[in-house]
């Protein structure tokens, strides 16, 4: 009975050994990176974007995709980069590390030259090494956890302001409001907790008391536990650093529990949906820390009109950053004299100085973050966020 099994097993072992030893597949050898497209300097410049098109953050995906597409269309209409067209491929990351990693591999297989995507930090982390091994520079428009930079990978550039800048803006604003007891709430994701931790440190240095700092579980519908803790701490300022889904519910439940103080949210929660979920009456006057957007900078109206004309809807969060990421990628190819090799592009990106993007003049710091990237304070007026004056 065991004879055919044994023979089969031996056969399998021998056959696989033969295959492995006689490995003629040159493509499997080390160094034969999938990004061989650096050689065909004549073809399209391929850009890849990972963005959530499904899952809890699916609302953001189209904003980023359209923002990038707008830049691609503009550059192509103006003759491309030295006569070469840009081509954009979008894959779903679903805010899930495994899906994001598979999407990244799909983009690598498609032969992209530059990655201009990345929304959720925890989903972007596993893609770093995939793009890194394929020698593809990454211009990350949204994800901004400090962890993305901890491995000190050469190919990673953050186009969004980081938690350091955001928490500075938040603590400055909280101090200016003269708050006595601050409650800091995060959803225990890397992005969110990074900001609350830094804000707490800043506030402590500024002499503002942090009455309550807690992490809530994302994806729940009842946050009465968190609300009770805030009420008991007699907080007069609540800062939520998670995403809009839970943010909306928290605002609603805080207000119905009789909370009278100020509420502020971080950039992940800046979306019309927040107002929808919280209810317009509850959300009125909610502040937000947000990177500069076309809606908040002078002369941004023209850009919004262009976007509206192209896609029939208003730009949303991270549309401008995605737009900028594509423009920076095109600029880098131009600076690298048409080369799409990873190291040439990285050198070119590090050398860019004074290129105009929404958040100011672009120059990457040695850590590959923006050297200047102001955060604005927004406030809910009506059904959307507007610049706080």
């Amino acid at each position, binding site marked *: 009975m065991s004879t055919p*099994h044994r023979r089969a097993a031996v056969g399998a072992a021998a056959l*696989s050994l033969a295959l492995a030893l006689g490995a003629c*597949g040159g493509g*499997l*050898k080390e160094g034969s990176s999938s990004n061989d497209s650096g050689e065909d300097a004549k073809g399209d410049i391929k850009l890849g974007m990972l963005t959530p098109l499904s899952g809890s953050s699916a609302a953001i995906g189209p904003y980023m995709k359209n923002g990038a597409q707008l830049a691609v269309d503009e550059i192509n209409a103006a003759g491309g980069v030295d006569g070469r067209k840009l081509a954009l491929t979008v894959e779903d990351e679903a805010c899930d*590390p495994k899906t994001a*990693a598979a999407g990244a591999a*799909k983009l690598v297989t498609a032969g992209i030259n530059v990655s201009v995507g990345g929304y959720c930090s925890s989903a972007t982390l596993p893609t770093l*090494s995939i793009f890194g091994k394929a020698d593809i520079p990454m211009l990350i428009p949204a994800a901004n956890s400090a962890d993305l930079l901890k491995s000190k990978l050469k190919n990673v550039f953050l186009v969004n302001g980081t938690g350091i800048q955001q928490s500075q803006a938040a603590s400055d604003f909280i101090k200016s409001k003269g708050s006595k007891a601050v409650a800091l709430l995060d959803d225990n994701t*890397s992005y969110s907790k990074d900001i609350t931790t830094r804000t707490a440190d800043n506030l402590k240095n500024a002499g503002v008391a942090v009455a309550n700092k807690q992490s809530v579980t994302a994806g729940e519908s009842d946050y009465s536990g968190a609300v009770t803790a805030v009420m008991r701490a007699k907080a007069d300022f609540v800062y939520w650093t998670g995403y809009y889904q839970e943010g909306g519910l928290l605002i609603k439940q805080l207000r119905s529990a009789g909370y009278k103080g100020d509420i502020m949210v971080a950039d992940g929660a800046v979306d019309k949906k927040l107002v929808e979920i919280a209810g317009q009456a509850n959300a009125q006057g909610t502040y937000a820390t947000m990177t500069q957007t076309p809606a908040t900078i002078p002369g941004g109206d023209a850009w919004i009109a262009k976007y509206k004309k192209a896609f029939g809807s208003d730009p949303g969060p991270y549309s401008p950053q995605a737009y900028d990421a594509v423009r920076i990628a095109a600029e880098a190819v131009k600076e690298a004299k048409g080369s799409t090799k990873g190291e040439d592009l990285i050198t070119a990106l590090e050398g860019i100085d004074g290129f105009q993007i929404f958040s100011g003049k672009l120059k990457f710091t040695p850590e590959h973050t923006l050297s200047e990237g102001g955060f604005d304070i927004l406030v809910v007026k009506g059904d959307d966020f507007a610049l706080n004056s």
Partner: protein
Amino acid sequence: MTDPSLPRDPAGTQLPPEESSAYVRAVETKQPANVAPAGTGLTPAAKGHGPTSASRVVSSPWFAVAIVVLAIALPFIDSGAYTLRIATDALIFVMLAVGLNVVVGYCGLLDLGYAAFFAIGAYTAGLLSTTFGWPIIATIPAVVVMAVVGGLVIGAPTLRLRSDYLAIVTLGFGEIIRITANNLDITGGPNGLFGIPDFGDFGYRSDVTIYWFTAVVVSLAVIASSRLGRGRLGRAWRFVREDEDAAEAMGIHTYKVKFAAYVTGAIFGGLAGVLFAVHQTAISPPSFNFLWSALILMAVVLGGMGSTPGVVVGALVISLLPELLRGAENWRYLVFGVLLIVVMIFRPQGIWPHTPSEPASAARREPDPQPEVTA
């Protein structure tokens, strides 16, 4: 041997008396096609009499060999980064599913927190390799130890109880592990661990090396689980699943036997965790949520509980279908869900259900006057 010409009432009520013993005879003469003549759910009664040539092909050991060889040869056929990525993901999922199959399929213990062992494996390997700088291979014994400890902690108190309690406790255990990982500083909190090294430099591209390593480990795991299921312990597991009291009465130490199944499942899950950590290079708590436990369980049920080839097929379907549906964007999981429901309506017993293979030898042993002694 059943005579196919015998008249059979479609309702199955007025069967001639010989027909009932024919059922037993059918089992004994290894004709699984005749075992369930009534059919279940919406499926028609089994039509086949005796193994068809197709089923003879797929049940031959050479078929399994062909699959293994094909799996190992995949990088020669298509070495694209995407293909290898989803193939490795799928193989890791196969490992998880055959591991859970030991617990749920063989022994009938409903484990709703299987991702906990997956997380224990991934975090142990990740922590030892990043924080303490161990080579990833060296972490495997530690992972096995941690998985066994996890299995002991949960299994020892709960396996004395009935299966329903185990389901609730494991459900809690899965969440406890995930939330603990989310709140401890050493596990990187919500950020998780990143920069996990791979198996080393063998002159091949790192994703090819990882794929081959995974393919070999998973093939061995599938063979091991299949052989475990056919051995003495495997039969004891099935007995416990069918009737725990009867098994105990027949002298099977049900607690020990259930424990063996649970700990075996834990080890499989832990090893899959190592492969996952290496493959992802970054692990964070959301990768080990309840959805994962549910998906692994779904692979087992979809494939056919207790059937190794079925579970492998089920795992491949569950793992690859969402990737193949990538184009559907936000509709992806809706389509995925609908397809699963369709499969469960038309194949409630699973894609490739388990067919008992022991009766042939049992029948041979039957006339043996020496009664078998059970330990």
